[in-house]
Structures are given as C-alpha cells and as structure tokens.
C-alpha cells in the first residue's frame, strides 16, 4: 500500500492500442483514474489533431444541452440528480445522441418561435382592446353634448361650440411605453406648434414584452388634429417614439363590433397559447429527466477524444501509441482495465510496456479525506520532489498543536471544535450540496484541520487554565491566604504569597496546567510571559531539530553519503551546541532554582538565561565575588564547557561551507586522472579533455556558490528561526489579553449594571449577545485566522527549510471523476 511518508513509485509506460479498441480502453482508464497521459504531439495545434472533428461534435452537443438546461431552468422545472454515473457510450451511440439532441433543440426552438409569434399577436390584441376601452371614455366625455347636438360627427363634438363648422378633425390612437409619455407630449407640442390635442390614459395591468419576457407598463393615447399635413407629422412622431398605432373606427357601433371581435380572437389565442405552453412544458420535463446523464455522457466522450488526441499514430500497425505515468502499485489494475476495454470492442489486446527514463516522474501521494487537507497545505508551498520525504504526516499533529499554543483558550477551542465536528458529522449531505461560496468551500475542505485545531486548543486552554479569560479551579489551588489578619489586609495594597511558606503554598503544584490563583494575581502577565516565552523556544528548537534529523532519511534514500558527513553532522552539531544547550539551561533553571532551599539556589540567585546565553557567545566570564552567596554560574565548570561548545559551533561553519565542495572537487580530479591514464595514447582524447576542463571549473564555482548560500542560510536561519518561534508566545499573549479585554469591557458592563430590579437581567441578555458575537468575530474568526497563518509560516519556513526542497510536480491522472466535478462546478458558477 502507498504510504504518506514518500510519494508513490511511478513508472513511465508505453501503451500500444489498436485503433478499434483505443476508445474503449481510454474510457476504462478514465473510470479507473490512475493514469496520467503525456502529450506526444506538443507542437501540433488543436486544429490539426486527429480527432478534432469528434471533439467539435461534442462541443456542439454540449452547446445544445446547455441551451436545453437554460430553458429548463427558465421554466423552473427541477433537474433530477439521481447520482448515477453512466459509462461513456460507444462511439456509434454518439450519432444517436446527436440526433436526439438535434430533434429536441429543433422542437424547442420551433415551440419557442411559435410562442413568441403568438405572444406578439396576443399583445397587439390586448393593446387594441385597451385602446377601444379607453378611447371610448374620451369620446364619452362629449357624449352628453352629442345627444343634444344631434347628427353631427363625433369628432366635431370636441370643438368648442362657436367654432363648429365644416371642419373634420382627424385622430390617431395608439399605445406607448409609459416612461416615454412626457417626451412624446413635448415633442408633439413643439413639432405641431400646439395644434394637436393629446389625451392619454394609463393601462393599469403590466403587459408582457414578447421578446424579452419582461413586464412593461404602457399608456393609451389619442391625438386629435386637423388636416393631412399634421396627420403626416403626428404619424412620423409616433413612429419615432416606437408607439404602436391601431386603427380605430369613428362610429361607436363599429367600435363596439370591433371590440367584440377582438374579444373572441383573444379567447381563441389564449387557448392556443396555453396549448403551446403545455407542449413546451412536456418537452422540457422529459428532457429534464435525462439531462444529467446526457451531460455526463457528452463530457466523457469529449474527454476521451481529447486524450486520444495526445497519442501518436502508428501507421504501419494501424494503432495508437500513448505514453503515460502509472503508479507501480497500480500496474495490475491498469492491465485489467485495458483487458476489459479490449474485450468490449473485441479486438486485439493492448500492450503495456514499461520504459526506462531519466525524466523526473510526477509526485503522487495517495490521500484520504482526512490527510487530503494536510497534504494540500504542504502542496500549496511546493509539491514534493519525487520520492522525497513528505512533511504532511508530521504536520497532522504539529500543525494543530502549534496553532493551539497560540489559540489556547478552552471556550474558543470548544466553539471551533464543535463547528469542525458538525462539518465532519454532516459530511455526506454537506458535500452533496455544491456551492460556489468560496469561503464555505475552504472551511469545509479543512474540516478535519478545524476539528483538530479546536480539540488541541481545548487542551492548551486547559494547560493555560483559560476559559474566556477566566480560570477553572478543578483540583483546588495550591496557594492559600490563611495567615492574614484584618490589619494586614487593611494596611497593604498588594500582598505577596511566599512559595516557601507551608501556610501559603502546599509545596506541590496544581496537578494539571497553571494554577487558577494566577488569574486573579497582579503579576500574572510577568509570569505568563516568562513561561510562554520559554515553552515557545523549547517547542521551536524541538521542531527544527526534528526537521534537520529528517534530512538524514532524504540523504540516505538519494544516496548522498557525502551530504550526511558534510551537511547533516555539522548542522546538527551547530544547532545542539548553541540552541539545544539553551533549552537544557531552561530546564536546569526550572528544576534547580526554587524557594525553600539553600540560598545559592533561591529564586533571587537564578541568573537570567538570556544574559547567560549572550555572554556565552561573547565568551565573557564572570567574577566570583567571595562575599556573595549567589554564584553567577548555574553549575560547576560552566564557563569552560560553554567555551568548548562555542568553539565546536564555530568550527561547524567552515565545515559546512568547504567540506562538500572540496570532496566533490577531489573526486572529479581523480576521475580525470583515471581518464587521462586510460586514454593517454589516444589522439581523440585530447579534444575531449580540453572541452571538459572549463566545464568542470564552471561546475565547481556553481557548487561553491550554492554551498555558500546554503551555509549562510542555515547559520543565520537557526538564529532567526529560533527567534521566529517567539511568535508562539506573542500570539498567545495577544489572544489571552484580547479575550480578557473583551470580557472586562463588554461582558463586565452587563454584570455590574442593574440594581435590585429585574432590569439587570435584561441588560445582561443583550450584553451577552453582543459579547458572544464579538467573541466569534474577533477572537475565533480573526484571531483564529491569524494564528492559522502564523502556524502555516512556521511549518513552511522554519520547519520545511531544514529538509524539504519541494521542486516536484503533481500527478494529474486522467479521471472522469475530476473532469465531471470541474464541469459541474463551471455550470454552478455560470
């Protein structure tokens, strides 16, 4: 089985496929998803390849399907996702599929165009109906006078009584978009110099635009004018404003008759329209049932032909030649898949041939849903070089742990762990729900990381004894204030508890984590800083040391014995002599110095480790004053031992710098001597020799520069990286302080406000909601993000720089699964 420690062994294989069976074989390999094909014709552009025609046909089918899907979505018909995964159809089925889609598309297009024509007709008729109704009102305004006036023409009634003569008024009626009315009116007034009379009425119901399908509001208008010239002008203006004009008979009887006609035609149209809609719906519903499967089939066919395009043609044997990377562990599976493929098409078997190559194979880590996210963290820095040690398995533990050192709070840890646990618990339904919400996808992809980070934060929260900045007193504090009387308390602002006094300190520490007494002490921060700073340096040195030790496995595996002696050993000596010694000093101080013992080991005598370390590097000694009981040294012979360590560390630097280039140079020389000794008589050798010497020189200078950079990076790096781990302390301090500030500035208001009435409870209710949302937003989300990024940096830079080169490229197998996923995501996004 594959392990996560190193990437899988890969083999470059050549594949001979019969042209009849190539399609089915590739289809089987796509279902398997363990083969990465290489493009054998990189110089040939996409249009000159063999199966360009088929790819194009697939594109066409895809376009038709997408059109169908859009129509289905427009009608709000649910698309059935049965989750079935149809196999790639045989090439001959492609014609059937094409015919089906063609038929469907044509049918749909016809139905759509019919519906559009019908709708336009419908719109015209409705508009006409409204005109007849509304204009009736205009005419009716003068109806009364018509009754009195007798047989005069309708239009004449509009004119004032005194100017009634032989003049006939003409009129135009129509419908116009409501927002155009003001401009239309002004235009008419200006163009006709006020000689027309415009009346308008609003159509209350919105009308549907047949082309865009939008709801638009329109108005009916009627324009009265006199004379032909004005008529021309009015008509031109109407056309210019896209108003639709309808013939409107003058006589009321004609109008009534027309209205009746319009009404019956509208009714007929309605039935036809609903029938067309029904038909369209039926077509779409039947299409919706199959569209997912069709889509998948088309994507599969397309990807198969796309892959076939990468193959070479073998003209003599009428076959195709492919080259591909296959994990060695899966060669059998691939053979089986090929056999299935050839059986399906019933032709000669395909031949799989392993090739020898000097080319670097792709890196393939077999991950599961748990390790995937951690591998992704590593891969986003750089994909591992082929068969190099993969930091991911260690990251699974160190990542959440270092995160938790910075995020240590039981309360916040519980919130984060619950969120992670919920995502893990509801994994299946949540992953079935595809969204393009990027933030959610990031959270969901990292659900196991979030869960682990939450659990580890709960653990460090216990150690720091910190729940939303309050401490838990589970086992009973070891500190007591038994011996104070009233006058002591009243006369002192601050009182110091003496750890040496049995009355005040139990002489054994709180069983787990920090003592809860620290939470209410005034020197809490001083204590926390000293403690957290030391543990961050200890964790950092252990982390880096581990990274350096891992590099041995790389050197061993890649057979670089020389690097073990010239790089690994001086590196580890350098780190141990300076920084591991520093860690040992920390432990020594913790164990050796304390209250209640001799004066020389009392807390006041404990030397500062930082000063000790600086003096060690400067090789500065102390004077031992006879009158002082405190010794500046922590143990006997410290000065000499420290001097020895510094000398060893300094020697390591030239060792790292020169040893390896020197050994390589000597080896090269020896080889050259051998060549000269063997071929000294040959004339041909001379030419070869002159050309190799400058080449070697160039090589040597390159090796020297490379080694120099490497050494400087390591030596300076161990100093700066050690300091860099102090971010563990800094962030953890910041987190604890922020949560304390939030408590005292927000939640405390709710606690202290309110007198005896029930008002305090109501205030508390609202203040708690504010505090809870600020806790989530600032302390869990923002601080969590920042701690996450710092952890990522500690892994990428401080840890991985010790052994990881990350210069490989990822294995991207040809798999239907990933292709379908990508295609579906593309659809969701549009």
């Amino acid at each position, binding site marked *: 089985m594959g392990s996560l420690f190193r990437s899988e062994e890969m083999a470059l294989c050549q594949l001979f496929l019969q042209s009849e069976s190539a399609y089915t074989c590739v289809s089987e390999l796509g279902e398997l998803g363990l083969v990465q094909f290489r493009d054998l014709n990189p110089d040939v552009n996409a249009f000159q390849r063999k199966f360009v025609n088929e790819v194009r046909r697939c594109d066409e089918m895809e376009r038709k399907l997408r059109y169908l899907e859009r129509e289905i979505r427009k009608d709000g018909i649910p698309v059935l996702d049965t989750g079935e995964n149809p196999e790639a159809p045989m090439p001959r089925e492609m014609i059937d599929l094409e015919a089906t889609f063609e038929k469907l598309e044509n049918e749909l297009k016809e139905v759509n165009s019919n519906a559009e024509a019908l709708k336009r007709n419908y719109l015209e008729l409705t508009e006409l109906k409204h005109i007849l109704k509304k204009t009736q009102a205009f005419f009716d305004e003068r109806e009364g006078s018509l009754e009195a006036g007798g047989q005069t023409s309708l239009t004449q009634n509009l004119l004032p009584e005194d100017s009634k003569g032989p003049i006939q008024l003409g009129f135009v009626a129509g419908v116009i978009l409501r927002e155009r009315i003001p401009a239309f009116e002004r235009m008419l007034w200006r163009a006709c110099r006020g000689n027309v009379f415009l009346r308008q009425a609003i159509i209350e119901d919105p009308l549907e635009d047949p082309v865009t399908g939008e709801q638009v509001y329109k108005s009916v208008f009627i324009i009265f004018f006199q004379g032909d010239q004005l008529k021309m002008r009015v008509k031109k203006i109407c056309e210019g404003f896209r108003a639709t004009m309808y013939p409107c008979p003058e006589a009321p009887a004609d109008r009534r008759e027309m209205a009746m006609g319009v009404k019956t035609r509208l009714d007929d149209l309605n039935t036809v329209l609903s029938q067309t809609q029904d038909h369209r719906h039926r077509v779409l519903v039947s299409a919706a049932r199959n569209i997912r499967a069709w889509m998948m089939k088309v994507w599969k066919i397309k990807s198969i032909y796309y892959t076939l395009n990468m193959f070479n043609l073998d003209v003599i044997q009428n076959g195709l030649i492919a080259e591909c990377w296959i994990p060695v562990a899966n060669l059998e599976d691939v053979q089986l898949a090929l056999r299935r493929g050839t059986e399906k098409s019933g032709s000669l078997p395909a031949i799989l041939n392993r090739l020898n190559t000097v080319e670097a194979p792709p890196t393939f880590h077999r991950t599961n849903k748990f390790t995937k996210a951690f591998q992704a963290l590593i891969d986003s820095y750089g994909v591992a070089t082929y068969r190099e040690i993969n930091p991911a398995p260690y990251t699974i533990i160190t990542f959440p742990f270092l995160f938790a050192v910075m995020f240590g709070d039981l309360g916040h840890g519980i919130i984060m762990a619950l969120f992670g646990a919920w995502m893990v618990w509801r994994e299946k339904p949540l992953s079935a729900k595809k969204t393009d919400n990027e933030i959610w996808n990031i959270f969901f992809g990292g659900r196991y990381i979030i869960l682990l980070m939450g659990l580890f934060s709960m653990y460090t929260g216990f150690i720091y004894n910190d729940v939303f900045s309050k*401490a838990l007193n589970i086992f009973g504090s070891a500190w007591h204030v038994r011996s104070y009387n009233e006058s002591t308390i009243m006369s002192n602002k601050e009182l110091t508890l003496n750890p040496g006094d049995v009355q005040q300190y139990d002489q054994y520490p709180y069983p787990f984590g920090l003592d809860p007494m620290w939470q209410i002490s005034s020197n809490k921060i001083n204590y926390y800083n000293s403690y957290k700073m030391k543990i961050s340096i200890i964790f950092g040195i252990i982390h880096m040391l581990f990274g350096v030790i891992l590099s041995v496995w790389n050197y061993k595996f890649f057979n670089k014995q020389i690097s073990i002696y010239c790089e690994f050993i001086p590196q580890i000596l350098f780190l141990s002599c300076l920084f591991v010694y520093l860690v040992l000093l920390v432990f020594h101080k913790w164990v050796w110095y304390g209250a209640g013992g001799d004066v020389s080991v009392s807390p006041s005598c404990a030397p500062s480790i930082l000063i000790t370390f600086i003096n060690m590097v400067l090789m500065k000694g102390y004077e031992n004053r006879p009158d002082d009981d405190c010794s500046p040294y922590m143990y006997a012979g410290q000065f000499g031992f420290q001097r020895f360590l510094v000398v060893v560390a300094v020697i390591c630097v030239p060792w790292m710098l020169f040893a390896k280039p020197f050994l390589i140079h000597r080896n090269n020389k020896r080889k050259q001597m051998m060549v000269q000794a063997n071929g000294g008589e040959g004339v041909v050798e001379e030419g070869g020799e002159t050309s190799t010497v400058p080449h070697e020189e160039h090589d040597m200078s390159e090796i020297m520069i490379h080694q120099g950079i490497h050494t400087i990076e390591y030596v300076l790096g161990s100093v700066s990286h050690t300091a860099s781990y102090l971010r563990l302390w800094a962030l953890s301090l910041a987190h604890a302080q922020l949560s304390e500030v939030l408590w005292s500035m927000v939640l405390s208001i*709710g606690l202290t406000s*309110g007198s005896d009435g029930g008002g305090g409870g109501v205030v508390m209710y609202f203040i708690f909601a504010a505090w809870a949302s600020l806790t989530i937003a600032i302390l869990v989300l923002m601080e969590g993000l920042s701690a996450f990024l710092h952890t990522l940096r500690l892994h990428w830079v401080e840890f991985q720089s010790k052994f990881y080169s990350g210069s490989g490229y990822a294995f991207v197998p040809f798999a239907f699964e990933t292709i379908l996923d990508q295609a579906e995501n593309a659809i969701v996004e549009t």
Partner: protein
Amino acid sequence: MKICGPKLSLCCTLLSVWGIVQLALMGLFFAIRSPAFIEDLSIPEEAHHDARTFLDAMDDSYSLIAKNCGIAAALYAVTLVISGWQVWVNNKS
C-alpha cells in the same frame, strides 16, 4: 407562522443555546461565590473602609449578579423556544 428567515432563526437558536449554558453556569458560579469573578463585582466606594461592610457588599453583589445571570438565561430559554419553533417552521416550508 413565519417571523424570521432560516439564517436568522438558526443564528438565534445557536446563540440562545450558548447563552443558556454559559449564563446558567455563570449564575451558579456567582451563587457559590467563585473568586474568579471578583473583578466583575460592583462594590460601592464607601464600602471599602470597613471589612465588615466590604464583605457584605461583596456578598450582595454576588447574589445580585447570580440572579441577573439566571434571568438572562431564562430569557435565552424563551428565545430558544421561539427561534427553535421558527427553525422548524422554516424547515417545513
């Protein structure tokens, strides 16, 4: 009857579950005079001069805050019932 949408009702449900748990626990801790909360008490300035009055004021403050936490927890229980019902309504429709 629908009052609020699915997101708001879910948010209120989670908030009130948290509120009930934390406020009930805090009420309990105040009731048993937990010294961790000593900085959150409100003790009037004039009570600082005499030990007896100071202790009395402290005691009063502890019980008052414990009561307030209890009231707030009860209010969150009401919120939980309402928002839980809304979540149910939203799920059904």
